[in-house]
């Protein structure tokens, strides 16, 4: 078991870091064994910064500069299967190129942590931020955590390793940060000492498995205890493998919260209940649901609206996979109209990825609030406080008229 000295007074240092740098710094403190990665905007700063740590001997990490993201993910799976704590980072086209391997990573139960600096997908080519890239990977069996700012990016990386490597989970984790808005924006970030991070993250503990000889051995590629990993499974076994992954996802719901709470005690920083973060939602009549950095803007908008007497609230979805359906349902129980803010499209799907999940979750709610979708910010299109105010005023009308004209709406779009 990991030994954690959580009640110590932890001193923290204030650093000026952008989101990418905050991630590189956190990875450095997590004593990661192997990083295998390929550069792509807006993730590049992570791999560049980490390369500096390697070049200056500040880390023991083996850094594999692969020739593609596909190979990066394959190398990560193999490294993790060999017992190494493994990290990578990507975005957009790079993440799409990894697609095949993402399923292999989760299917092989390799607890890799990957930062995704969320960016739009081609075509047309666009290097700016939206969440199309990781939302398109939502069924690949990875845990998805999305952060609001650089501080949370830093804090979430440590938690991600603990969650991924937890014996009840053993799944890979994506930490999503909005491209440019978080990845490239300089912020004040409180960082823990190397020592307290080391104590918090601990060493990677491998699960034990039973060999055909009846021996209990650590789950890794080891000439002393040969094991066949990544086999073929026919219809007589494949299904059970997949069912086990779903069970691990369920377990993750609890583990994500436990790890978050433990980290909160250590650092003094918390993000809602780790799955969702509520902002003035208790008595809210109208609410939006955001993933990522937009929540920051919306919080300001809510303060202004509240001053005008509007009962506005926000639910920020921090954990998208596993989807915290019960928590979302409960948090929205007393709201009359809800706008889901989707920073990606699900073409032909009547709304974005988050919208599908939220409406699905609300199907069993007793109060049945109106749930409407707003697609925003694609390809880095700016979404201003004014735009969000408009969304809240739409919600007000929907709640008042008890009628919703359009299921899916677009924010700040020429039509």
């Amino acid at each position: 078991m990991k030994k954690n000295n959580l009640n110590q007074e932890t001193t923290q240092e204030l650093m000026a870091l952008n989101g990418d740098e905050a991630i590189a710094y956190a990875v450095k403190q997590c004593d990661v064994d192997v990083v295998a990665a390929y550069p792509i905007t807006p993730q590049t700063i992570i791999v560049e910064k980490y390369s500096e740590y390697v070049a200056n001997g500040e880390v023991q990490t083996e850094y594999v500069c692969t020739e593609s993201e596909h190979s990066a993910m394959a190398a990560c799976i193999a490294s993790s299967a060999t017992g190494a704590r493994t990290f990578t980072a990507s975005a957009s086209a790079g993440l799409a190129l990894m697609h095949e391997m993402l399923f292999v990573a989760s299917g092989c139960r390799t607890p890799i942590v990957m930062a995704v600096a969320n960016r739009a997908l081609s075509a047309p080519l666009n290097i700016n931020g939206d969440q199309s890239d990781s939302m398109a990977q939502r069924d690949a069996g990875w845990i998805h955590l999305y952060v609001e700012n650089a501080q949370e990016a830093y804090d979430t990386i440590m938690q991600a390793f603990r969650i991924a490597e937890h014996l009840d989970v053993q799944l890979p984790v994506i930490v999503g940060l909005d491209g440019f808005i978080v990845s490239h924006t300089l912020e004040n970030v409180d960082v823990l000492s190397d020592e307290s991070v080391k104590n918090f993250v601990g060493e990677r503990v491998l699960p034990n498995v039973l060999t055909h000889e009846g021996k209990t051995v650590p789950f890794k590629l080891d000439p002393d205890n040969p094991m066949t990993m990544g086999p073929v499974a026919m219809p007589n076994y494949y299904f059970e493998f997949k069912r086990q992954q779903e069970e691990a996802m369920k377990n993750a719901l609890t583990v994500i919260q436990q790890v978050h709470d433990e980290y909160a005690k250590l650092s003094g920083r918390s993000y809602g209940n780790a799955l969702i973060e509520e902002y003035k939602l208790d008595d809210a009549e109208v609410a939006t649901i955001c993933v990522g950095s937009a929540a920051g803007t919306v919080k300001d908008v809510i303060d202004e609206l509240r001053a005008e007497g509007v009962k506005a609230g926000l639910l920020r979805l921090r954990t998208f996979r596993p989807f915290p359906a019960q928590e979302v349902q409960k948090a929205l129980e007393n709201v009359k109209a809800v706008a889901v803010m989707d920073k990606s499209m699900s073409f032909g799907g009547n709304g974005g990825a988050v919208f599908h999940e939220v409406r699905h979750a609300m199907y069993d709610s007793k109060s049945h609030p109106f749930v409407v979708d707003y697609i925003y910010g694609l390809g880095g299109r700016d979404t201003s406080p004014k735009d969000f105010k408009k969304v809240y005023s739409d919600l007000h009308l929907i709640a008042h008229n008890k009628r919703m004209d359009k299921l899916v709406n677009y924010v700040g779009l020429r039509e």
Partner: protein
Amino acid sequence: MEEQKVTTQEWKFTAKDIALKPEGFLPGHRACAGCGPANVLRMVMKATRGPTIVTEATGCMEVVSSIYPYTSWSYPWLHTAFETAAANASGIEAALKVLTKKGKVKQEHIDIIAFAGDGGTYDIGLQALSGAVERGHDFLFILYDNEGYMNTGIQRSGGTPLGAATTTTPAGSVMPGKMQNKKPITDIMVAHDLEYVATATPYYWKDMLQKVRKGLEVEGPAFLHIFAPCPRGWRSEPAKTMEYTKLAVESCVFPVYEVVKGKYELSTPSKLIQLAPQKKIPITEYLKGQGRYRHLFTPQHQHVVDTLQRLTDERWAKLQKKVEQTA
């Protein structure tokens, strides 16, 4: 099961040595009767020199050996995808390096072997292979070449020879099987400036095992191209598999040689043909009996046989020149 240390003494690969060495690729796998690659894998695993991790690309040999809950592998083994054998090896090597530094690996050294078929090497796996050898990871990449995508039902690959009928290059009334010749994969690997590149066939098994051992002994990447007939895909008699691996050498369709630090050297079976050119057999001796070439033995397609003979001769001449030039 495995020695803890790397064997350093000269290994003679006598029949007795081989018989006494525990199997790495165990019986019970689902390969067809007379399968060339299965023979190759079994023999290759007899040449390991100590603790070894194996990784393998998707393909016939991966599928026949790892059907859960069974396995033919008595060595630690990893499969991730079709195009990833070399990338897997990079990840394993990187992990072993750092874990050794941190004192988390007991063995003083662990060898890494990556197996892939011609599909996983010439075609979809070429980028990962090129990247991994450029980065200089310490592993031996073994291409078992059965000249087609056999696992998916005998489709053409970049390693399928001119004129061979496959299910995506069928012999039709207009087209005589595959219209392009085999990609010179060994030259491509030599061009990466590897310390050790070699070709082998299981007919000359001692030569093959020695080459495996040499590839493992090199510090850094090494590449071994092994000829491995597939009776299913070649429409050939299962009992003739080994014979074809001999005829391929004697016809110079598949010469056996080594390239050590850029220096080409013919291995004995091919060297004997160089010394006594009259021993070189016409390619028809090799082609006949293989159902994939049956359509060539018609007046209509005679020109394809002629072209194949010419290309084979040209490549053989080129190879000999390289031997001369780098001597």
